């Protein structure tokens, strides 16, 4: 499983283009109803929207190293991980639009993506997913079932207290947990160097008796191989890893962020064309094949979007359901 086969690499391209198609479609829809006057609450896709454009290699590379047993928590920017993990695309699209067939029947929205069928969860408070991920790993240990847990956070989240508390327990109890720190250089408008006392969060692993790995390429091949190593350590009972991955945030913190604060020399590179060129260069696929894969991704996303648009809204009375399990529908 740990070899970089051609099939695997074409799979990365497929997953990345699908994730990009997802975000691009959502971005287009997001602006409906929000121009000329921008307003979070307007249009068919209201609320904050944090897109993953630029971070697709992280989702593709890490998720390919996981098995279905493994568990994931993601943060406020979950799309690339969810798509790579195989979260139901139709129902995720419907969820973003607040529709009844959405994963959460419209109650969650884009920061709250839950798909237990593929052991995926996400939520919107910074660093909030770390404890649950470690707890999922602990549960499996108690249940004597296999399973590695992966918490996806941003480099900004690594300065939140929960990071310290959870990493310490992961190290202390040698839990099979991988903390993926997605370093896209920014937490909203704050650069990593303005928020973090050290250059690399991976180096903080030694404070927790965890392994630390750093990948600086935003390339799914490299990310995959590092993730495979981390997963292998976790499965072998050697404990957790802080896996820091340099990545990109091409469309701003959220839609509406003009990113005027980003200086010219910090402009980020789109990893997709680079990876496409690399695979063609390596003879893994032809340009035509690459385009065909991308086209299929866009089509698939178009169908998902159509599904979402056609779906009905929940009935207003359903707002009162699901406050407690075992009570309402």
């Amino acid at each position: 499983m740990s070899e970089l086969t051609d099939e695997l690499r074409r799979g990365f391209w497929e997953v990345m283009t699908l994730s990009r198609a997802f975000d691009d479609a959502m971005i287009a829809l997001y602006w409906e109803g929000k121009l000329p006057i921008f307003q979070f609450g307007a249009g068919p896709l209201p609320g904050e929207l944090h897109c993953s454009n630029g971070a697709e290699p992280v989702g593709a590379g890490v998720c390919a190293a996981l098995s279905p047993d493994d568990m994931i928590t993601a943060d406020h920017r979950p799309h690339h991980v969810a798509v790579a993990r195989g979260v139901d695309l139709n129902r995720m699209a419907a969820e973003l639009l607040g529709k009844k067939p959405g994963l959460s029947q419209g109650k969650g929205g884009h920061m709250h993506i839950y798909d237990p069928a593929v052991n995926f969860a996400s939520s919107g408070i910074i660093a909030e997913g770390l404890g649950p991920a470690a707890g999922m790993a602990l549960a499996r240990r108690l249940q004597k079932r296999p399973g590695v847990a992966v918490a996806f956070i941003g480099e900004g989240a690594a300065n939140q207290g929960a990071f310290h508390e959870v990493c310490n327990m992961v190290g202390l109890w040698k839990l099979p947990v991988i903390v993926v720190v997605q370093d896209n250089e920014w937490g909203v408008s704050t650069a990593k160097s303005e928020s973090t006392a050290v250059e690399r969060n991976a180096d903080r692993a030694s404070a927790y008796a965890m392994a630390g790995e750093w990948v600086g390429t935003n390339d799914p091949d490299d990310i995959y191989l590092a993730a495979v190593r981390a997963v292998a350590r976790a499965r072998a009972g050697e404990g957790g890893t802080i896996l820091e991955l340099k990545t990109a945030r091409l469309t701003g913190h959220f839609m509406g962020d003009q990113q005027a604060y980003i200086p010219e020399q910090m402009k980020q590179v789109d990893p997709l064309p680079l990876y496409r060129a690399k695979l063609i260069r390596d003879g893994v696929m032809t340009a035509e094949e690459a385009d065909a894969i991308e086209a299929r991704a866009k089509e698939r996303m178009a169908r998902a979007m159509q599904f979402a648009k056609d779906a009905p809204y929940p009935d207003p009375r359903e707002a009162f359901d699901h406050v407690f399990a075992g009570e309402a529908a």
Partner: protein
Amino acid sequence: MSDRILTMSRAGREALDWEMERRPEIFCMGEDVFKFGGIFGTMDGFGAKYGPERVISTPISETGFIGMAVGAAMAGMHPVVDLAYIDFIGVCYNVLLNTASKTHYMSGGAVKVPMTLLIGTGGGYNNAAQHSQCLHATVAHIPGAKVVYPSNAYDAKGMLHTALRDENFVIFLTHKGTAGVGWMGTPIRTTLSEVPIEPYTVPFGKVRICRAGTDVTITGLGMSVHEALKAADALEKDGISAEVVDLRSLSPLDRDGILESVAKTGRLVVTDEDYLSFGVSGEVIATVVERDLSALRKPPIRVTTPDIPIPFSRPLEQAILPLAGRIAEAARRLMA
């Protein structure tokens, strides 16, 4: 089988032990639980009996380990977490407010978080502003969390069985002074009850009439139930018949049960060891008058801890606690 008189501590322990023996998904977590058995001895001896895998002492990392408990619950376990004092919720409040309580709803019912969080509340033993708070209103204000609060051994056992069988996040509060643990002195008589050996459940969301009366309703919860009972004894000598209503459960709250008593007596004293404003006392009063304004013959009176941090010094703390004397005095005013 014959019943025994137990403390709340022993009664709660019995429920947890019974469930843990039968259900491998239950495990315990918290600071010092392995060696000390939890703040109220609910897990007393469990370290030896169930081993360190199921009785996990944690670092002082409440956000971390309660967050882990949520994840474990999402993955099919039922964690029982000991947070010791409610004063410590500040370092882990996000897990209660946004994670444990909202995951089920935010997932549209797809994910469940069955877990029980044991927390001790209250003062009265000079432990000062950061170790004497009640704050039950703060946690009861969280939607998606059930909040229960037994005040006697029978309820402690029955409600803990109920909590452990609930599929939701349950915050299980116990006033330190009621539990019957050594360091709080001899147990309060009215916290002790006959406790069946067999398991049984006490439903959430039902008040308990601790003492029937006809002249004035006194509502309380946790420790204030016992102060109310003391007050009722004193009032009886004055010929005043007080009905003492133990709320027992804040979420859900038995609004009908409260109204039923007040409709009968027409007078209401609300006691609460939590701070006065924006808490339980206002909620109880609002519940009555929004349902039946004519139920009250006199303006209701609140006897609570005022909106001040809890002072350390004994005469200062005694002056601000809602003790029996203040409660009886309020009832007498209503009868005047």
